[in-house]
């Protein structure tokens, strides 16, 4: 059976290989990028390539006349700068560079997200812009950046001219929870504020790339002041479905007084699942169980925090 499958795969490869070598464009600056994307509006943007190359059907490509724009030579996308309020990363800064340059200053939730990927063999190649702009699947990064209220600079073509606009990442989510870019648009910079929130949690269960229909990630940030959460933000990521974020859920969290007892946790959980079910229908039982488990772990930790913090 396996042999049959592999010989079929090999035959497919022989058929498509040679027919489908994509054209590679390597712009060195924004002007060159604008010129290329104007000529080839359907071109695929290539950042680190980690996501694209790890798709089972990535090679040989079945698309004929595929155009790829490799962003690796665009020097301005590799820049990193920071001041006392925020850090700004070019889209081609790798996750390993984000980790090493901002270890001392970046929010814990972001660093935990990068650590959750594991080996540097992956983080040395994956870029922060690429992690946000994946098309078929959502990685855990947009959710984490939403919880940090990050903004991104979008470059896009309108009337044959290159425009730029800073947007909050939450505003880029479409109704299916996917990060959507305007046609020919690209993310060029990501701005992350230094967060003074003392409750930051990132938990991811399951493999985003190899088992997306089972994976779940939750990013949560808030400050706790007198047993009440101040400015809480929670984002749920289901890689095969999208990112779920709602101000209403944030408001529910800010109305809670900790510690929560079992009954209060159950009603919070019910509200969260009502929101999730109203947004998506295909949540699997495993994803549901994992979401519940992560939520409980976060609430348990917040309960502990509220009980151990000095009385005000």
């Amino acid at each position: 059976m396996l042999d049959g499958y592999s010989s079929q795969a090999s035959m497919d490869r022989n058929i498509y290989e040679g027919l489908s070598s994509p054209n590679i464009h390597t712009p060195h600056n924004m002007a060159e990028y604008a010129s290329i994307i104007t000529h080839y509006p359907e071109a695929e943007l290539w950042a680190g390539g980690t996501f694209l190359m790890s798709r089972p059907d990535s090679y040989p490509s079945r698309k004929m006349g595929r155009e790829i724009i490799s962003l690796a030579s665009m020097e301005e996308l590799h820049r990193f700068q920071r001041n006392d309020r925020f850090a700004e990363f070019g889209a081609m800064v790798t996750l390993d560079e984000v980790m090493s340059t901002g270890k001392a200053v970046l929010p814990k939730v972001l660093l935990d997200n990068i650590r959750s990927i594991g080996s540097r063999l992956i983080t040395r190649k994956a870029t922060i812009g690429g992690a946000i702009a994946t098309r078929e699947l959502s990685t855990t990064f947009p959710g984490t950046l939403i919880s940090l209220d990050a903004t991104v600079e979008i470059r896009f073509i309108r009337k044959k001219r290159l425009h730029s606009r800073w947007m909050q990442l939450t505003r880029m989510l479409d109704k299916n929870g996917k990060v959507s870019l305007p046609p020919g648009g690209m993310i060029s910079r990501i701005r992350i504020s230094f967060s003074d929130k003392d409750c930051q949690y990132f938990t991811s269960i399951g493999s985003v790339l190899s088992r997306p229909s089972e994976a779940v990630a939750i990013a949560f940030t808030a400050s706790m002041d007198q047993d009440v959460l101040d400015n809480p933000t929670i984002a749920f990521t289901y890689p095969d479905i999208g990112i779920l974020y709602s101000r209403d859920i944030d408001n529910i969290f800010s109305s809670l007084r900790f510690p929560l007892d079992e009954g209060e946790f159950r009603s919070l959980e019910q509200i969260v699942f009502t929101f999730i079910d109203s947004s998506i229908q295909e949540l699997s039982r495993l994803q549901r169980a994992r979401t519940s488990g992560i939520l409980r772990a976060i609430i348990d930790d917040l309960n502990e925090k509220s009980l151990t913090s000095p009385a005000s």
Partner: protein
Amino acid sequence: MKVDCTIDGKTLSLSLNSDKPLSLIINENLGAGSGTNHCNGSLCGLCAVLVDGKPTLSCLVPAFELRGKEVQTFDGFRRTKAFKDLEKAYDAVGAYPCSDCYEARSIIFHSLIADDVTDRSEILKELSVIKCSCMDPDDQVAIVKQGMAIRSGKRVRRIQ
């Protein structure tokens, strides 16, 4: 497309599909790569090679990114002194990777030794990319530390 690169010390000019993964190039175009696996995106970690001296999963490197790069596969690495030292470290610890992951794990061990990574969690995190579970974590850390000791012993002898 034409790709000029150096693989195992040989300067090559290859005519390739521009998005062909390095793991397949090694297997099909060069006929080398005894253990360079092509896993079709399952990120098994068994295709690790050194690209410009850094360990990289060759299934994630497309042909067009190889221009001007220097690639060392396990076949090239096994001829180096660093590999002989690594074999001594395996012997000293008495633990060896299985035949499936020997090549990839040896390349990552080598990079950890070269980068002087001593932190246990860092060592295990770097090796976690290999899905094969044939080795005990303590043995893996011991091999890296033993490898460093062998290398620093050589340095001391050279200075004397």
